[in-house]
């Protein structure tokens, strides 16, 4: 199989380039893309990428495979390979540190901006705060985010305004706290999101939904936030 990998080493290369590898895929199992990267690294130890849990929960190995973002460790070859060829590129829209490793600072900064922690200024009870199963259910589809950045780096609005538009991952978490029955900072959170960029740059393109490896739906969460902002304004 022809594997084409984006290569860039700031110590050596002036510009990035695609390097082709001809890889014999061992028969039997349908390998994951991460397995392929590990095989490549045995051939050429200079190929660099992030990886850790190899089961799709740590969010380290978000890459772009034949044009689509996803986690290398849970993407089987059968799902992405077209005419016996696989191109692996770093997540788009973020500065490349080396090869498939991108600088995720802007992504993390947007996450931090939405105050991703529970705010409740009332003194806590001696036990847990109670929450009904119905209220808890509202967090499903939100808290599972693994911060892999597949969605945000697939979003054109984020490409244009990475410093101003929070992006789908950050907004998903913003809604996770807005809707948590235990959080009391709704007003403060909404006030921080009402400008023309943070939320309203979402154009409903829905790339985020189509690439999320955990099957989450940031566009829907963004819609909910917009409704909350409108209700608050009128």
């Amino acid at each position, binding site marked *: 199989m022809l594997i084409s990998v984006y290569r860039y*080493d*700031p*110590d*050596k290369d002036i510009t990035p380039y695609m390097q082709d590898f001809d890889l014999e895929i061992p028969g039997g*199992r349908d390998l994951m893309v991460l397995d392929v990267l590990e095989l490549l*690294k*045995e051939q*050429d*130890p*200079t190929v*660099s*990428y*992030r*990886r*850790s*849990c*190899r*089961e*799709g*929960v*740590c*969010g*380290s190995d978000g890459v772009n495979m034949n044009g689509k973002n996803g986690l290398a460790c*849970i993407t*089987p070859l059968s799902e992405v390979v077209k005419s016996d060829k696989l191109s692996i590129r770093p997540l788009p829209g973020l500065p490349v*540190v*080396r*090869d498939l*490793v991108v*600088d*995720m600072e802007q992504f*993390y900064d947007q996450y*931090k901006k939405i*105050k*991703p*922690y*529970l705010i*409740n200024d009332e003194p*806590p009870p*001696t*036990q*847990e*705060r*109670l*929450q*009904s*199963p119905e*209220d*808890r259910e509202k*967090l499903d589809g939100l*808290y*599972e985010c*693994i*911060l892999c950045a597949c969605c945000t780096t697939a979003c054109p609005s984020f490409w244009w305004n990475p410093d101003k538009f929070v992006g789908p991952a950050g907004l998903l978490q913003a809604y996770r*706290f807005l809707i*948590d029955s*235990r*959080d009391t900072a709704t007003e403060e959170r909404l006030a921080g999101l009402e400008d023309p960029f943070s939320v309203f740059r979402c154009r409903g393109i829905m790339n985020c939904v189509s690439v999320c490896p955990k099957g989450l739906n940031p566009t829907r969460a963004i819609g909910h936030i917009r409704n909350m902002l409108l209700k608050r304004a009128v």
Partner: protein
Amino acid sequence: MSKIPILDFDAIIVGAGGAGMRAALQLAESGRNIAVISKVFPTRSHTVSAQGGITSAIGSDDPEDDWRWHMYDTVKGSDYIGDQDAIEYMCSAAPEAVYELEHMGLPFSRTESGRIYQRPFGGQTKDYGRGGQASRTCAAADRTGHALLHTLYQGNLKAGSVFFSEWFAIDLVKNTNDAIVGVTAICMETGVVHYIRARATVFATGGAGRIYQSTTNALMNTGDGPGMSLRAGYALQDIEMWQFHPTGIAGVGVLVTEGCRGEGGYLINKDGERFMERYAPNAKDLAGRDVVARSMILEIRDGRGAGENGDYVLLKLDHLGEEILHSRLPGIIELAKTFAHVDPLKEPIPVEPTCHYMMGGLPTNIHGQVISPDVNGNDQIINGFYAVGETACVSVHGANRLGGNALLDLVVFGRATGLHIIQALNEGMDSAEASESDLDAALARLRRWDESDASGESVPKLRKELQACMQLNFGVFRKEETMQKGMHKLVELRQRIAGASVGDKSAAFNTARLEALELDNLLEVAEATAICAEGRKESRGAHAREDYQDRDDENWLAHSIYQPTTRKLSKRKVNMQPKTVPAFEPMIRTY
């Protein structure tokens, strides 16, 4: 020795998993100058993979529940070499620890009355084993570790903790007073080596499950903490005790939570027989993990394994129904489909015992202070050096950890360690400067790798051989003959690794270089494991010897201590003096 940049802190924490971040949270609130250094971004730490939950007697499922019952279970689960003062501390502090996480925002699953949902886990009983199965494990669906890790990271953001993400610790820096004064570390993005100076250094580096071929552990769980500690000349405790989780997905090793069996799933052999009824008539599939893992291997050995080669058994879940599976075990459905290509709603999941947890580690007291037993067997505290979480051996897990106690260990002792460091800093800590030669020593192995020429063997090849050796000779069942073979192989590997080379000399994000440094650590832990496993001539908890099948309390009701300077095994007394309850005397352990 060239000058390297120096960063200064009151305390540093190496590792940003549950333990490291809980300690960091405590320290951040003290206003001290602290930093967490981690080789991955905090939420990528392996705590994220924990599924089932965190055990704590909060009395949501059963209002009568008592932390002392939890303590009894834990002592019994440890096969009586868990330190009872530490277990007492952990179990009694557990409810407060869980409430605190909930207040921080952890999205626990809920009961109808709005309290935290608790599920049954292995080895859990009511009334000191007399009252039947308990449900004591607090859960956020089957993603408790993920929820816990993200919540702690969020808590740290709120508290303003300083993180050095993607910094890799090379070695401990030890001053002439034999105190620890920080670590040497590489900034991965630039490749620049720094000396991170600190008056207190906390290791929260997690486990080393990657010494085995088949493991539920992340690729980065390479025993960096124990490796650094051994090279600095400090001992490891009970390092032969490796937990094999009964349900890793066959062939891939991906974890399937014990919560599956807690919710009513069970194991079957190729004939569809629920075989655990034969091995553990009372607790059945919810016996201790060591017991279940051994039973599975025996089934397979007796020719009742499923699959083409008869080398795994099956975990049946379909009878639980779609609703329970979707609400309680959604992550498992996903993992089974991705990695085993089965839909657990319709077919059972192929599973096999898979290396999961390192019960041993750096011996510490309940404040997280690392202990180095001297020649007379007396505990000596190492100044400025702390360890917490899987990398530490307090010891609350002894010879076998109960499910749900790992996450608890992280937060309870993370907090305790933070508290102790604040107190120690306030009282003034030794901070004699490290000399040039001290720093040199902490950079020696990096220089060795950096100067290696291209002719040596490759790191991935040697790593694979090491993992295969450990899998074959130090797995679920062990015996003298094969362990001797394994030990010879490790001696050979040590020589070959000394001549191995790194095929990438670039500065920026050089992962080949890091994998070489990790291989050093794997080797240290593997060797310690081998020597202790060979030396402990009995069967206890996860350590099952075919040539010494019985527990030997007369000689081995003790911690094993591995001394790296002599490469020999010695013993350390188990603590049998809890402060508020009578000690639990060793009894025959059946489920």
